[in-house]
Structures are given as C-alpha cells and as structure tokens.
C-alpha cells in the first residue's frame, strides 16, 4: 500500500522539532548522561587513587625521618618503662615476691601466681581520671591499640605472710616507695597466737596480701618460649 500525502509546513516543523527532541533525548539518555556518570565515577576513583598515592609518597619520603623517630621512641620507651619489669616466668615472680618478704624477715606461708593478663590497669575509682574518662580512655585505648599487641601485663600474686605487724608495715612501705612495678591490691591482717619452737606462746600477724606485678612485653611472643 502506497501512502501519498502532502505535509503541511506546520507538520514539517513539528516533525523537525520531534526529531530534534528525539535526538536530544536518546543522545542524552543513552550516551551523554551515562558518559557524565562514568566521569563522576572516574573522578571519585581518581581522588581515591590520588590520596593513596600521596600517602604512599609521604610514607616513602618520611622513611628516613621515621627511622630516626623510632630510635628516639625506643629510648623514650625504655625510660618510660623504668620501674616496670620485663616479662617474667613464674619462678622469677616467686623469686621477686618471696625475696621481698624475706627481706623484711617475714615468713611466706602461701604463694599463688596467676597467669599474666594483658591490658592497661584501670585508674583508681575515686580519682579524677577515673571519674572523667578512665573508662572512656581505656576503651579508646583498647580501640586504638587494637591493631597492635597489648604491651602492659598484670600478674596477680596472692601471698600469705606471717610476722610482726611492724614488719608488714615496713614491707608495704617499701613496696609503695621502691617498687613502682608492684602494687598492693588488697590485704587482710589477722592476729594469731602461736607456739614457737621453744614452746613459748607468741603473738603474730597473718597477712593475706594480693599484689599486682606489672610487666612489659608482648605476651604472644613469649608464649612459645
């Protein structure tokens, strides 16, 4: 069937406009807009890569200064951990604590050494640090140190000592003043009457004492040793 019809000028204009609109629509919808979206993706990717590149450049360029910084950091760390102990085996802890008791002429009658626990000890509950941010800071600390191993460890030692009250006070005073790596967590003093070797009745104090020994080192590294 042959269609033979004359188009009016208005129809021609309409067809032209329609053609223009269709061309605009299809070109924009299927070619130009996707191209622009792709461009935005490319710009975002480029920005990410640029940041990555800058970080790499900074890391590479700061290598020498970082190495110097490490030397300083190691020195500072050494100074900072003065007073704390390196990782110790139980026999070493025994030697330290028992030695301390014997130093003050006390008789250790019971000693229990628990496994060291990694983590920064909390601040005293009534201190400002504890009130303000001890929990937060410890939480933050644990968060911030997540990528790295815990370096500070606490070994809890329970010891029962017998001796004169004054000797026990001397021991506690000595620990407080001269052993920053040892903390008296709690104690319980009880007096008792005993018979000595010459069958004489003597008054002595029993002191159940819980001590915390703070050591520095990475536990995972020593587990296998």
């Amino acid at each position, binding site marked *: 069937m042959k269609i033979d019809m004359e188009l009016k000028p208005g129809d021609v204009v309409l067809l*032209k406009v329609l053609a223009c609109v269709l*061309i605009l629509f299809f*070109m924009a919808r299927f070619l130009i807009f996707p191209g622009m979206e792709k461009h935005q993706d490319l710009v975002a990717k480029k920005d990410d890569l640029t940041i990555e590149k800058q970080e790499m450049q900074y890391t590479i360029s700061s290598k020498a200064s970082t190495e110097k910084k490490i030397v300083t950091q190691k020195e500072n760390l050494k100074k900072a951990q003065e007073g704390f102990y390196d990782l110790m085996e139980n026999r070493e802890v025994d030697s330290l604590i028992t030695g301390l008791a014997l130093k003050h002429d006390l008789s250790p009658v019971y000693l229990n050494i628990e496994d060291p626990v990694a983590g920064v000890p909390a601040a005293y509950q*009534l201190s400002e640090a504890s009130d303000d941010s001890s929990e937060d*800071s410890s939480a933050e*600390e644990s968060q911030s140190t997540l990528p790295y191993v815990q370096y500070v460890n606490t070994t809890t030692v329970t010891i029962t000592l017998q001796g004169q009250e004054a000797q026990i006070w001397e021991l506690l005073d000595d620990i407080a003043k001269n052993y920053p790596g040892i903390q008296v967590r709690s104690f319980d003093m009880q007096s008792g009457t005993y018979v000595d070797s010459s069958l004489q009745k003597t008054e002595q104090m029993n002191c159940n004492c819980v001590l915390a020994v703070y050591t520095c080192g990475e536990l995972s590294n020593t587990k296998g040793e």
Partner: protein
Amino acid sequence: MSDTVIILQDECILAAEGKAGKSPKIQKVERIPIDVFGDPFEQWKEALDKYKKKHNPSQVRLVLPTSYSSARVTQIPYAKGRQLTRLAENVMAENGSDWVQDYALIKADRKKGICLCCGGAEEDVLKKIRELTKEVGISVQWISVPMECYLNTLGQLKSYQNDTEIVLLFEEGSVTSILFREGQYLYSTRSRIFSERGTLDFGTEIVRNISGILQFYSTTKSDVPITKVFYAGCSTDDFEVSEDGIHAMNLEVEPLDAEFDFAPPENVDDWLICIGAMISTRQKEINLNKVWKGEGTAGVLKKESLAKHLMFPAITFGICLVALIAVTVWNYAESHKIEKIEDWINDPQIQSEYQEANAVREESDRLDSIQNQVEQTKSNLATYPDLDAEMIAKIVDVGGSAMTVQIKTMDSETGELTFNAVSSAVIDIPAYVRKLSETGLFSTVNYSGYSYDDGEYSLMLSCVLKGAETGGEDQ
C-alpha cells in the same frame, strides 16, 4: 567582473558582455558569422576561438541553437516546493527520457498559475558542446535554450503584460512567433524564412505565419480576440510589406518597444536573446550543464530540500555529538590520569620502597601505641593511694597516745580501709571521726559503732581512701 553570454545560432554566434541580473546591463556585443556549410560544431569552435582570443572570458552562459535544442512551454496550476518539482518532472517526463532536460519558472501567479519552460538537448550535443568549449578554453557555467531567453526578455516588458497579442522575434533566417493571451503564454512556433526580407514573398510568409496562429487561436474558442502583432529583429522597412496583410486580418502591427540598459550602438531588437540570457531571476532557471553533469535538477531540488529539512535535526545531532565527544574526551583524559596514577602505584620499585617505608611506619606507630600504654599505666597507677608509713603514722596520730590503731584490711580497688581504734578511756567519738575526716586521707569515714571488752573500747571504722589526684597522699 562582467558576465558573458554566448548564443550559438545556425549562421553566427552572438556574444554579449555586461552585468547579469534582474535588469541586465549590456556593455558590449559582438556577432561572429560562421559558414553555414560544413560541420556547425567546428564552425562554432572557430568562432568561439576567435572570441576567446579577443575577449578571453572566464566563464560564460551558453544558449544552444534552436536546431539542436527543444523547448516546451506549459501552463501548470500554481504550486511550490515539492509539489512544483513533481509537476515539473511530470511535464518533462512527457518529452521522453533520452534528453537532458531542465525547466525554468517564467511566470508564477496564484490565480493564473505557473508558466513553465522546459528545455532540453540530446546528450551527444551537450557532449560536443563541452568538448569544443574545453578545447577553446572557455568554461561554460550555464547552458540554456533560446525560448527561455525570449520569455525572460518579454517578461521584462511590463507594457505588454496583459494584452492578447502575437510577438514575432526574427533571427537570421527564421522567426519565432509567440502567442500571448492576456499576458499569459499560449502558443509558439518557429518558422524558417525562405524569402529575402522586404520582398513581397517575405510579407506573404509572415502573413501566412500569423494566419496559422489565428487559426490555432480560433480552436481555443476564446472570448478575447487577438488585437496586436509586435515584431522585433526586423527593420520597419523590411516588415512594411507584411503590414497590409496583417491589417486585413483586423490586427494592428507595431515594432516591439524594447527598453533595456543597452550601451552598444547596435539595434537592441537584434540582441533580445542575449538580453534574455543575461536576465537572472531568483526563480528556477534552466541549466542543462548542471543536469547533464549528473546533478539532476530534481535531484538537486530534492537534495536541497532534504538538506534544508534535515538541517535542524542535524545541528541538534551535531551539538549532541560534540557534547558526547567532549564527555568522551573528558573521560579519556580522566582514565589516562587514573592509568598514570595506577602505573605509579603498581610500579614494582615503588611498591618495594613503599612496603619498606610502611613497615618502618607501622613499627613507629606500634612503638607509639606501646609507649601510650606504658604512660597510661603509670598515670593510672599514680591515682591509687599508697598505704605507706607516712599514711599509717598520720592515721595513728589522730587518736593520740590514748588510742591504739589496728589496721585490718585494705582493698585498693574500692579504696576501703578498715581498722579498729582501741582506747582504754571513754573518748569523744564524734570529735575523733571529724579529725579522721580532716586528715584529708579519706573521701568517706564510716563509723559503725563500738564494743567494750576487757576494759577497752573498740571503735569499728571503715574509711574510703581518696585518690592521689584528689588530695590524697603524693605518690
């Protein structure tokens, strides 16, 4: 720059130089006679060669001789655009397909319709014409037929526009008779004149010619009678012998009053065909040269028309294409930048350097973290109250010599310190509790009572030690 028209005729070539346009200006004319015996193309070639050497025209408009061309004038209904093109194609189709044809719009009127002049020539003729002009070195821009030129010329003469008349246009040995009815072309014929001009036989031939036209006109049964005969290209003296015969047919006769911008001294009547060739209207004109080159008129019109219609969509498409190319180039540039960055990042040497530097940086960060832990530990431990000799002495001193203090328990986690204060005398207990508080060692002092046994009062006290930072003992 002047325009040149060359009219090829059987006995001569006519050349005119001037300014083409709607009202042409003729500055120079020249008639170069040729030998009527022999190959006319060779004769025209020689004549053109002479003209070329004399005037050296760059481009010319060429009018074919009547004997080697055809013309058909048709009246069609008023139309324009594609419709007109189609009507013109139909008219030309009646002439057969062997001829190279084109058409010209002579006159267009909404009421009276369109006067269409279709002209054509055989392809061989055009080929020969092209060869000879090429050999002579003349560039032919335009090829038309004599009838178009005559109709163009007469179309310029406004005073004859509305009459019903016969116009006789004399050439060397022929006359072209055109019949107009109320200014509209109706009929034309071309006859050879065998008699010498001015003789009785010449007059007879002319009268016979006009009589034939009258006979044709009578068949149209038109109400408008033919009243006048105009002639051009023949002197008044020569034409005089025809006048009696024409008057006898109740017709008036007058020489054509052609008023054109014609500078040469020659008689303008003899150059009407050149003037017609110089007339350039803005309407469609015959150009057999263009059609024959393969750029058919209809095709050109269609192409032009199609190009015109496609212009806006094409521009839109072009703009979109430019935008697309811009976006593509933009993306390409970005991709190129990304590629360069990726190349840099993935470079083995850079990677190696980065791994080393990163390991160093991680070690530094690790040391930072460790130091923070140690510092934090020191800081936290410093907040605990230490039960040292000084603190114990202070607690003991509060009771004075009359009181013995026995510390029982201490828990650093809760800060609770319990002790017994033993006195053999009755003491002011509230004052003692206040004094304990005033030592600044405790945040709270709880007194839970006393017991009396063996002549001694034993107070039960439970205190919570202050932290080091809140006023407790210095660590």
